[in-house]
């Protein structure tokens, strides 16, 4: 199947939409996949491989119409005849995923994908099959390395690294402004500044939360920058006490007063954010780091924002929510050019579900509120939290599959 980037596809539109587009006859596919097969059916220089999933007396099989094709474009057409156990098909090269199809089930129309393969040994992997790994040979010259999926993903990690650096720099500036507002003693201005400063940390939290001050014991929270910057009242270490954003939040939104203590907290936050910026500068990432980071940000949404536990006093949880989502989407966006080569259906599904979440969040925008989103009150939480959580769950499930794909991309 040729990928159409503009198509707004759900999980497996391919399964439905492709019926009839492709192969006319799928009946004659399960031939013996031993070596020395005749040249496969080809049209217009595209080789065709039919993959048939079957089940007989509890044993599931994944059979190829041919075990060898010449180098060049190859279309795999996967038909699940009657295997309840197999829902996935992967083409691997040296354990790296070259192409795949998911959401296979008996009764659905055949699905196809086309990849351009260089000469070499490949494996077909059908989890759930008795013969779950089948050898597949491509004859002819090896693929040229330029423009490979891995190169696209590497480009993406560099772009993402720049994005993180930009967010951290923005955080340094915004926390400086928060300190200035606190020092001025103007509670309303400081509240606004708090709302402006929060998003930066939330967008890149999964990348910057692991830093400790040089020379400190990793179990000692007094040297843990995430603790010092972002700890909530509910998780305090009594030996270290409360520091950071949320201690300032309590003064500004619950006490609604700026004291000497508040000013001290804001100054300390400003210092620690500066230290974090130093330590995190020029971080490099592997593709799976981006995927895991995005998944981590969505876990943050589910664990703390949906429940309104992150911003206990200001109730700007939806600001943090939107920032977590933005950070996750940025990580995904930088992986997208490479991921589309590996699994266009998954890429489309994740894109669509990000759009769904963003559309939902857009309904809560309020330019007059601190941070630009409506206050997450107890009443709003009661009426809307399930809807918000379910939209994020729908995104988390496909997003959780990305790390494995990009980690194994060639």
């Amino acid at each position, binding site marked *: 199947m040729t990928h159409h980037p503009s198509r707004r596809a759900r999980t497996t*539109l391919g399964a439905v939409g492709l019926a009839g587009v492709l192969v006319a006859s799928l009946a004659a596919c399960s031939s013996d996949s031993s070596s020395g097969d005749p040249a496969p059916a080809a049209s217009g220089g595209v080789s065709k491989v039919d993959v048939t999933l079957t*089940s007989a007396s509890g044993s599931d099989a994944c059979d190829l119409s041919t075990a060898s094709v010449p180098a060049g474009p190859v279309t795999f057409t996967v038909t699940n005849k009657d295997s309840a156990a197999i829902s996935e098909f992967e083409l691997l090269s040296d*354990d790296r995923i070259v192409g795949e199809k998911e959401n296979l*089930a*008996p009764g659905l129309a055949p699905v196809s994908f086309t990849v351009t393969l260089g000469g070499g040994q490949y494996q077909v992997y059908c989890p759930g099959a008795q013969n779950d790994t089948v050898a597949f040979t491509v004859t002819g010259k090896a693929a040229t390395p330029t423009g490979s999926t891995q190169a696209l993903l590497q480009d993406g990690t560099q772009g993402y690294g720049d994005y993180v650096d930009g967010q951290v720099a923005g955080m340094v500036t915004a926390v400086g402004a928060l300190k200035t507002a606190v020092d001025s003693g103007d509670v309303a201005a400081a509240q606004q500044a708090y709302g402006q400063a929060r998003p930066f940390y939330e967008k890149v939290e999964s990348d910057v939360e692991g830093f400790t001050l040089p020379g400190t014991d990793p179990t000692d929270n007094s040297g843990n920058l995430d603790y010092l910057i972002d700890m909530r009242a509910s998780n305090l270490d009594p030996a270290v006490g409360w520091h950071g954003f949320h201690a300032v939040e309590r003064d500004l939104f619950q006490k609604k007063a700026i004291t000497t203590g508040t000013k001290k907290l804001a100054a300390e936050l400003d210092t620690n954010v500066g230290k974090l910026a130093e330590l995190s500068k020029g971080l490099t990432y592997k593709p799976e780091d981006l995927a895991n980071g995005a998944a981590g940000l969505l876990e943050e949404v589910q664990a703390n924002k949906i429940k309104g536990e992150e911003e206990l006093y200001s109730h700007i949880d939806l600001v943090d929510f939107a920032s977590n989502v933005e950070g996750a989407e940025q990580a995904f966006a930088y992986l997208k050019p490479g991921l589309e080569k590996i699994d266009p259906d998954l890429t489309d599904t994740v894109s669509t579900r990000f759009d769904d979440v963003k559309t939902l969040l857009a309904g809560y925008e309020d330019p007059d509120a601190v941070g630009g989103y409506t206050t997450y009150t107890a009443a709003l939480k009661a009426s809307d939290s399930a809807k918000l959580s379910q939209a994020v769950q729908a995104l988390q*499930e496909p997003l959780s599959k990305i*790390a*494995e794909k990009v980690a*194994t991309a060639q």
Partner: protein
Amino acid sequence: MTTLRDRRDDPADPDERRRLSRRSFLGGGVAGLAAGALAGGLGGAAIAHARADEDAPADVSETAVPFYDQTHQGGIATPPQRYVVFASYDLTTTDAGDLQVLLARWSASIAQLQAGRNLGTVEPSRPSGVPTDTGEAADLGPNALTVTLGLGPGVFDDRFGLARHRPARFDHLPELPSDRLDPKLTGGDLSLQACAEDPQVAYHAIRDLSRLARGTAVVRWTVMGFGRASAGKGQTTPRNLMGFKDGTRNIKTDADLDQFVWHDGTDQAWMQGGTYQVARKIQMNIENWDADQIGDQHAVFGRTKQEGAPLSGTQEFDTPDFARKDASGELVIPATSHVALAAHENNGGLKILRRSYNFTDGMDEYGQINAGLLFIAYMNDPAAFVTMQTKLGRSDRLNEYISHVGSGVFAVPPAPATGHYVAEPLFG
């Protein structure tokens, strides 16, 4: 009667367990509802039958109910297992293709689960892989799991272009007398009823099937039930949480199933061999009931508590005599008793197949026990339930002690053949 569970709970009796026959269960209970010894529950007859079959697997945890190539879906005429997890879903998609893929993947997954297999892998080989099966039932065996898939009236509204397939008699239930329905516990576009001999097996099925639905459907309401509160064929009659036997006069013959339960496909061929499922979450006012005197409890049900006999008789299976009067000229079985109002003799011969379970949700906000009956019934015309509940809702003496708080109606298609999925003809 000795039940299978009694024996399984008795470690001193391993030989007895080994003698229990999987084959007799499948042959009698699941495949055909044929004659004679039915297991799943089980009465002494089944055990006696099983003793002849020494080669069979050991216990009910190894019992598997086939999914493909059956005339009807499992979990309807299947002898009721001990536990249920019922879930109703709202479709969040408006794309018929998404619904189609969900039904296909659910069907294949149910086939796997009923065979006692994982859904894919619990432990992927690559460290960055995410387990596709959540794992909590990995070592438990199939436990006679059945998952019954139903389609709500919403599937046939204007969202999916499937309106032409809506059976003429299938629609949302009307508002019925005494209904106190909570919208959060009412309705749904799809239903899954997972029944098993181990509650964790039923829970795992619903959890993993709900996970597969993410992005396409979300759980609307769910009930976890126990205690098999309706007898199937060959089973001793279980009790509801009011302490009364439930299901004494339940449908137990193939002739009744054909007449009252299975759809003949007249107006919609895809429903042939299917049925309609009505699910009602019925809360009981447990504390009030517990304080009620036995004479009134008998009059409310029209039966005795211990034996379960109609007040006109002495044995559980005595046919009730609704005309019999006592010395003072009063009906022995009050006309407003539950059994009198629900009896087929007083409803133009109408019968439905009941397959209910007891539930508890802990304590409610008023400091009262939140418990009751997950009433599930199957019939070939939802009007049967409407007729009966209209009558019960108006005058049943039981209404003083119960409230219908949740409700749903679903069309249950027949089982698919190998290589196909439930409701596939809708997408042809």
